[in-house]
C-alpha cells in the first residue's frame, strides 16, 4: 500500500513536470532556429525563461513537492514559486514574441490575426478577470474543503496546480506588457486593479493565519500564512518595478519648444519610422545650442548688462 502511494506520487510529479520540460526545450530550439535568420534573441530573456521553468519544476518535483502533501508551509513555498515567481519570469521570456519570429511569416501573420480577434484571450487578459481568476481561485482553494480534497484526488491535484500556474501567468501578462499584447489598458487602470488584487492576496494570507484550511494544524497555517504574505510581497515588488519602469520609459519628456522647456506633448507628429517631425524642425532651428545653453547664454548677457548682478 505504502509503496503504491509513493509510486503514484512519483508518476504524478513526472506527469506535471513534462509540460515544463517540453516548454524549455521548445524555447531553446526556437531561439537557436530564429537566431540563424534574425537578430540575436536577448540573453536575459533566455535566462528569465530558464529560471522560470526552474521555479515551476522546484515546486512540482522533488523535496518541496513531497513535503507539501504533509506540510502546509512547504505547500505555500510551492505556491509562491508556481503561482507567482515562475509566471513573472516566464512572462519576461516573451514566448509569443519568440514564437512569432521563429515560424514562417505567413503563419505568423495568421497567428497574429487569431490572437488579435480572439475573444477568450481578450476576456482572460482583462486585468479584472485575470485578478478574479487568480486571487478568487486562491480564496476558493483555501477557504473551502477543496484544499483537503485536492490531496485525496489526483485529478483534482493536477487541475488545481494547472490553474494556479495559468492564473498566475494570465495575471502577470494582464499587468505588465512584455510580450505580444493585443488588448491594452492604461497604466493607471492596471495599477488600481493591481492594488486591489494584492490587497485580496494580503487579506487571504492573514485570514489563513486565524482560520486554517481543513486538516491543517494551526502552527503550519501560521508559518504558511506569513510565507504567503511576505513571499507574495517580494514577487509583486518585482512586478511593480517593471510596470512603473515601463511607464517611466514611455512618458519620457521630449524637448518641446523654448517657452516651456521640457514638456510632454500628446499630439506629436511622427513619421512611419518613428522620427518626431517637430523635434527635427526644432533641432534644425536652434542648431548648435540646446535650450538650456540658450537660457544660460541669455542669463550671462543679462548679468553683463546689469552691473549689480555681475558683482554678486
Amino acid at each position: 500500500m505504502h509503496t503504491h502511494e509513493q509510486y503514484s506520487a512519483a508518476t504524478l510529479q513526472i506527469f506535471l513536470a513534462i509540460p515544463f520540460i517540453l516548454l524549455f526545450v521548445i524555447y531553446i530550439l526556437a531561439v537557436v532556429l530564429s537566431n540563424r535568420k534574425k537578430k540575436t534573441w536577448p540573453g536575459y530573456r533566455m535566462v528569465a525563461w530558464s529560471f522560470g521553468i526552474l521555479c515551476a519544476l522546484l515546486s512540482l518535483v522533488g523535496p518541496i513537492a513531497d513535503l507539501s502533501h504533509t506540510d502546509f508551509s512547504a505547500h505555500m513555498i510551492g505556491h509562491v514559486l508556481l503561482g507567482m515567481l515562475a509566471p513573472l519570469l516566464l512572462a519576461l521570456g516573451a514566448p509569443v514574441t519568440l514564437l512569432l519570429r521563429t515560424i514562417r511569416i505567413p503563419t505568423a501573420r495568421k497567428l497574429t490575426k487569431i490572437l488579435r480577434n480572439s475573444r477568450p484571450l481578450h476576456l482572460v487578459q482583462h486585468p479584472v478577470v485575470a485578478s478574479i481568476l487568480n486571487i478568487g481561485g486562491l480564496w476558493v482553494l483555501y477557504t473551502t474543503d477543496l484544499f483537503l480534497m485536492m490531496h485525496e484526488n489526483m485529478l483534482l491535484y493536477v487541475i488545481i496546480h494547472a490553474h494556479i500556474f495559468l492564473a498566475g501567468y494570465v495575471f502577470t501578462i494582464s499587468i505588465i506588457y512584455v510580450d505580444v499584447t493585443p488588448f491594452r489598458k492604461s497604466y493607471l487602470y492596471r495599477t488600481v486593479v493591481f492594488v486591489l488584487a494584492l490587497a485580496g492576496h494580503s487579506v487571504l494570507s492573514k485570514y489563513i493565519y486565524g482560520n486554517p484550511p481543513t486538516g491543517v494544524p494551526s502552527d503550519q497555517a501560521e508559518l504558511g500564512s506569513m510565507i504567503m504574505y511576505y513571499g507574495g510581497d517580494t514577487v509583486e515588488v518585482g512586478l511593480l518595478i517593471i510596470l512603473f519602469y515601463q511607464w517611466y520609459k514611455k512618458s519620457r519628456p521630449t524637448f518641446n519648444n523654448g517657452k516651456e522647456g521640457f514638456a510632454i506633448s500628446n499630439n506629436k507628429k511622427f513619421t512611419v519610422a518613428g522620427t518626431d517631425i517637430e523635434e527635427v524642425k526644432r533641432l534644425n532651428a536652434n542648431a548648435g545650442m540646446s535650450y538650456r545653453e540658450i537660457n544660460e547664454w541669455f542669463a550671462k548677457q543679462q548679468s553683463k548688462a546689469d552691473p549689480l548682478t555681475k558683482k554678486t
Partner: protein
Amino acid sequence: MTNSISDSSDFKQNPNKKAYAKQNMWTGILFGLGIVAFIDEVVFHQLLHWHHFYDKSTTDIGLVSDGLFHAFSFIATIGASFLLADLHRRHAFWLKRWVGGILLGAGVFQLYDGIIQHKWMGLHQIRYGVDILPYDLVWNILAALMILIGAILIQQTNHKKEG
C-alpha cells in the same frame, strides 16, 4: 520669466516646477503614506514587537482595511519613487511642496491608523500590556501636527503659483 529667475535660486535649476505643482504634491503624499506604513511594519512590528502579524480579536473589516492599506502603501512608495525621478528629469522638482506632501500623506495615514484602524476597527493596539493612553496621544497628536505643517507648506506653495 526673468523675474522668476531672480526671485528663487532653485527656479533656475527647476524651471518647470510650477507646471508640475500637482505632481510634486502627490508624489510627496504617496511617499509619506508609504513611509509611515513602512515604519509601522519594520520598527513597531518587526523590531520592537509591540504588535503582531495577526491579532485574534481583529474584525473582518479590520483585516480588509489592513490588507488594502498594506497593498496601497507599498505600491505608493515604489510609484512615488518613479514619479520623483520623473520630476527630476523634467527639471520640475519642488522641494518645499514635495516635503509638504510627505507630511500631509504621512499625517493622514497615521491619523487613520490611530483613530479608525486601532480604535474603531480594533485591528490592533500600538502596544500591549501597558497603559495605552499616552501612546495613543503621542501617536495621534504627532499625526495632527504633520497634517498641519504639511497643509501650511502646501498652502504656501499654492500661493506662489498664483503670484
